[in-house]
C-alpha cells in the first residue's frame, strides 16, 4: 500500500502543512494573550466607570478583531488538512486524535464565536456586565480551544491511553483521562498559552511605546504598558518555568529530539547545558547524517544531567547511543527496533490474511498476540520503525533544532528583562525619557513572533521523521494523491496567505497610526 509513496509527495505535504501552521501561528498567540488583556482592561472600566478605560479597551479590541479574523481563516485549513493530506494518519489515529478536535469544536469554538460577536457589536446593545462577561468568555474560549488542540498535538509527541486493534488495524482510545492528562499535554498547554500571553504583552508594550515616542495618546500608552507589563512579567516567568518542565518531560519521552536540541552525539555523565555554541561539520557521519561539533561553547556544567535525571552525575544519552544502542545503559539500537517493528507488522499482515482466508484458528492465535503484554511492550511499540530502511533515518535536522531552541530560549529571557524595565520605568515615570527602551520595545514585536514560531519549529521539526512518535513516520501517513495536486495547493496557499498577511499588516499599521476613536 504505502511502500510506494513518492518521497516528493511527502515533502510537499509536509511543506503545505508547515506553511499553514506557520501562518496560523502568526495570529493565534496574539488572540490568546490579547483577549485576556482586553478582559483586564474592560474589568477596570466596569469597576471604575472611567470612560478612558473603555476607550483603551476599544482601541485594542479593534486590533484584536483584525488579527482574529485571519487566525480563524488559517485555522480551518489545519483541521481539514489532516484528512486531505494525511488520510492514512486520520484513519490510523482518528479514534484518539479526532476526539479532542470534536471537543474543541463543541466546548471552545462556539463559546469563542458566540461571544466575540457580542464583544464587537454589543457595546450599546447589552448591559455592561454582560458585555464584560462576553469579553472574558472570548478569552476563556480561545484558550480552551488551545487546550484541546494541544492535547491532540501532545498525543502525537507521546502517544498514551490507547491500544492497537488488529481487527481495524488502528489505534483506539482506552483512557480519555490519560490522553487529556498526558504529561506532555500539560507542559505544552501551559508553555504555549503563556508564550501567547508574552507575545501579546510585547505587542501592547511595543505599540504603546511607539505612541509615547510620537508623543500621542500618552495616557492610553502608559496605562496599557502597566497592564501588559504586569501580565507579561508574570507570564514570562511562568513561561520559563513551564519551558524547564517541558524540557524535562521531553528528555524522558523524546530522547532523540532532546539530544538533537543539544547536538549531543556521545552520551555522557555530568553533561552540561549548552547556552551558546556554533555548529561545525566534524567530518564524521552517522549513516548519511552529518555529525556536528559545538564550537565557541558556553555551557552550564552538569545542568543537562540534572534536567534529565535529577542528578548532577546522571547519564544523558547522545544520538550515537540512541541510534547504535548502548546495552550498558539499556538502550536498544534502532536496527533492533526496526527488526522488532517488522515482526509486529508481519503479524498484522498475517492477521489480515487469515481474516481474508477465513482461517479462524490462526486468527485467534494472532489476536492473542496483540493482547499479549510482552508482545505489546517489546515488539508492537516499535511498529513504526518497521518503515525505516536505515537506522540514521530517525535523526532529525540537528542544526535547525539546535539554533531554533537557543534563539527561542534567549528571547524568552530577554522578554523577562523587557517587562521588568517597562514596569520599572513606568513606576519611575521615566518612560518618555528612556527613548532607547521605547525603541527596543518597538523592535521587540517581531522578535516575539520569531520566538513563538521557533518554539513550534523545535517541536515539530524535532519530532521528524515521526508524525506520531515511534508509531507512524510521516511517509506512511500521507494521502494517496498526486504530488502535482499538493504542489498546486501549496502555491495557492502561499499566494493567498501572503496576500492576506500583507492586507492584515497594512490594516493593522493604519489602525495603529490612526489611534483610538475620540
Amino acid at each position, binding site marked *: 500500500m504505502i511502500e510506494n509513496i513518492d518521497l516528493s509527495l511527502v515533502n510537499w505535504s509536509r511543506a503545505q502543512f508547515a506553511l499553514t501552521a506557520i501562518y496560523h501561528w502568526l495570529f493565534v498567540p496574539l488572540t490568546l494573550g490579547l483577549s485576556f488583556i482586553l478582559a483586564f482592561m474592560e474589568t477596570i472600566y466596569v469597576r471604575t466607570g472611567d470612560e478612558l478605560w473603555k476607550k483603551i479597551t476599544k482601541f485594542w479590541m*479593534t486590533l484584536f478583531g483584525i488579527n482574529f479574523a485571519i487566525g480563524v481563516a488559517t485555522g480551518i485549513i489545519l483541521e481539514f488538512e489532516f484528512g486531505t493530506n494525511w488520510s492514512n494518519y486520520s484513519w490510523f489515529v*482518528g479514534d484518539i486524535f479526532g476526539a479532542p478536535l470534536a471537543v474543541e469544536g463543541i466546548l471552545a469554538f462556539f463559546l469563542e464565536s458566540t461571544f466575540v460577536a457580542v464583544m464587537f457589536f454589543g457595546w450599546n446593545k447589552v448591559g455592561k456586565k454582560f458585555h464584560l462577561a462576553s469579553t472574558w468568555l472570548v478569552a476563556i474560549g480561545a484558550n480552551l480551544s488551545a487546550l484541546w488542540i494541544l492535547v491532540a498535538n501532545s498525543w502525537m509527541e507521546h502517544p498514551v491511553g490507547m491500544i492497537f486493534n488488529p481487527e481495524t488495524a488502528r489505534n*483506539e482510545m482506552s483512557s480519555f483521562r490519560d490522553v487529556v492528562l498526558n504529561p506532555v499535554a500539560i507542559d505544552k498547554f501551559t508553555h504555549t498559552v503563556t508564550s501567547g500571553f508574552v507575545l501579546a504583552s510585547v505587542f501592547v508594550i511595543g505599540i504603546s511605546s511607539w505612541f509615547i515616542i510620537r508623543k500621542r495618546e500618552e495616557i492610553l500608552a502608559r496605562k496599557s504598558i502597566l497592564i501588559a507589563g504586569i501580565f507579561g512579567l508574570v507570564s514570562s516567568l511562568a513561561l520559563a518555568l513551564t519551558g524547564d518542565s517541558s524540557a524535562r518531560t521531553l528528555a524522558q519521552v523524546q530522547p532523540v529530539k532532546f539530544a538533537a536540541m543539544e547536538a549531543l552525539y556521545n552520551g555522557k555523565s555530568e553533561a552540561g547545558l549548552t547556552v551558546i555554541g556554533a555548529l561545525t561539520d566534524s567530518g564524521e557521519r552517522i549513516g548519511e547524517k552529518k555529525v556536528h561539533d559545538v564550537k565557541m561553547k558556553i555551557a552550564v556544567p552538569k545542568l543537562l544531567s540534572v534536567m534529565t535525571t535529577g542528578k548532577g552525575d546522571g547519564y544523558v544519552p547522545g544520538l550515537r547511543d540512541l541510534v547504535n544502542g548502548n546495552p550498558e545503559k539499556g538502550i536498544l539500537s534502532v536496527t533492533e527496533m526496526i527488526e522488532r517493528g517488522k515482526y509486529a507488522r508481519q503479524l498484522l499482515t498475517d492477521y489480515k490474511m487469515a481474516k481474508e482466508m477465513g482461517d479462524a484458528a490462526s486468527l485467534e492465535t494472532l489476536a492473542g498476540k496483540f493482547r499479549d503484554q510482552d508482545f505489546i511492550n517489546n515488539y508492537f511499540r516499535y511498529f513504526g520503525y518497521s518503515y525505516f530502511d536505515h537506522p540514521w533515518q530517525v535523526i532529525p535536522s540537528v542544526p535547525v533544532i539546535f539554533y531554533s531552541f537557543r534563539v527561542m530560549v534567549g528571547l524568552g529571557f530577554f522578554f523577562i528583562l523587557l517587562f521588568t524595565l517597562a514596569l520599572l520605568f513606568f513606576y519611575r515615570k521615566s518612560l518618555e525619557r528612556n527613548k532607547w527602551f521605547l525603541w527596543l520595545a518597538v523592535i521587540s514585536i517581531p522578535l516575539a513572533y520569531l520566538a513563538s514560531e521557533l518554539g513550534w519549529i523545535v517541536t515539530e521539526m524535532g519530532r521528524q521523521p515521526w508524525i506520531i512518535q515511534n508509531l507512524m513516520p510521516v511517509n506512511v501517513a500521507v494521502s494517496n494523491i498526486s504530488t502535482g495536486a499538493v504542489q498546486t495547493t501549496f502555491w495557492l496557499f502561499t499566494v493567498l496567505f501572503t496576500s492576506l498577511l500583507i492586507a492584515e499588516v497594512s490594516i493593522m499599521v493604519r489602525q495603529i497610526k490612526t489611534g483610538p476613536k475620540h
Partner: protein
Amino acid sequence: MTLMISHTFLQNYWWLIISLLAGLLVFLMFVQGGQSFIFSLPKNDMQRKMLVNALGRKWEFTFTTLVTFGGAFFASFPLFYATSFGGAYWVWMAILFSFIIQAIAYEYRSKPSNVFGTSVFDTFLFINGCLGPFLIGVAVATFFTGSDFSLDLFNSVRWGSGWHGLEALLNPVNLLLGFAVLFLVRVLGLMYLYNTIEDDDMSFAIMKRLARNAVPFLVFFLAFAACILLGSGYMADRATGNVSLAKYHYLHNLTGNIFTLILFLAGVALVLVSLWTGMIRHSRRAIWFAGPGTVVVVMALFFMAGFGDTAFYPSSADLQSSLTLARASSSQFTLQTMMYVSFIIPFVVLYIWYAWRSLNRTRITGEEMTGEDHTY
C-alpha cells in the same frame, strides 16, 4: 463499574449528531445565501453596508458549525474523514478556499489601507456565497450517488479518478442537490435580511427576489428527491456487511422509519409555510419557519443515507469498499466518551440563542451604520 452502551447505539447516536450539525450548517448558510446577493440586491453603498453587517454578525456561527461538523466526523467516523477528504481532494480544497476568503472579507472590507480594495473583499464574499453552498450540496449528494474510490486491506484509500472529487460535478443528480442547496440558502438569506434590516427600499427588493429563488429551489429539490427516492440505493447486508444496489432503497428508508418520515414531511411543510408567510403575508418571521424546516429536512436526508442498513458513503467503483456506520466508526469507548461531551450541546444552543437575541433585539438601520460602533 463503567456503563458500556452498545456500539451500534453509539454509532447511530453519533450519526444523529452529525445529521443535526449538517442541518444546522445548511440553515446557518443563510449567511452565504445573503452574501450571494451582495452585488445584486443593494442599490448603493449604504445598503450594501447594511447587508454585510446584518450577515457579518452571524458568519462566525456558520464557520464554527462547519469546523465542528468536520471535527465530529473525524472523531466519530474517521474512516469517512480519511476516505472522503483524502480522496475527493479538490472538492474539499475548493470548499475550504471559499471559506478562507470569507473569514477575512468581513473584517477587512471597509478598513482603510486594506490593499486590495472593498470590491475585492466583496467579491470574496460573493464567491463564498455561491461556491460554498453549491459544492457542499454536491459533496453531500455523493452520499446517495456514490464516489469513485476503493479501500485496501488496511483501509488505505485509492481514488479512481484523477480529478479527485471534481468528477462529482459530472453527475446531474449531484448538481441537482448542489443547486437546490444554493437556492435554498439564498431564500434563507433573503428571509434573514428581511427579518434583520429596517429599510423599506431593501425590503421591497428582497420580496421581489424571494419568489425568483424559491421556485428554482423547489424544482431542484423535488427533482433530486425524485431521483434518489425512485432510483437505486446502496444497501448493506446487516449480517455480512456486503453492499449491493437495491431499487427504491432510499424510499424504503424514508417510509420505513416513522421518525425519518415525520422529520421529512414536517420539514417540507415548515419550509412551504415559510415561503407562504414570506411571499404572501410579507412576514418578517418567515425565517423562523424556514430555519427549523431546513434543519429537519437535512436531518431526514442524512437519516435516509445512514440508517436502515445503508452505506452512507458508497463507492461506485467497488461496492464492498463502501462505508457503513459500523465500518467507518470510531471504537465503542471513544464514541461513548464523546457522547458524554455531547450532552453539553443543549447548553451551547441555549447560550447561542441568548446571545443572538441580545444582538438582534433591534433591527439594523442606516443610522446605526454611521455611528461609532464596530461595523464592517
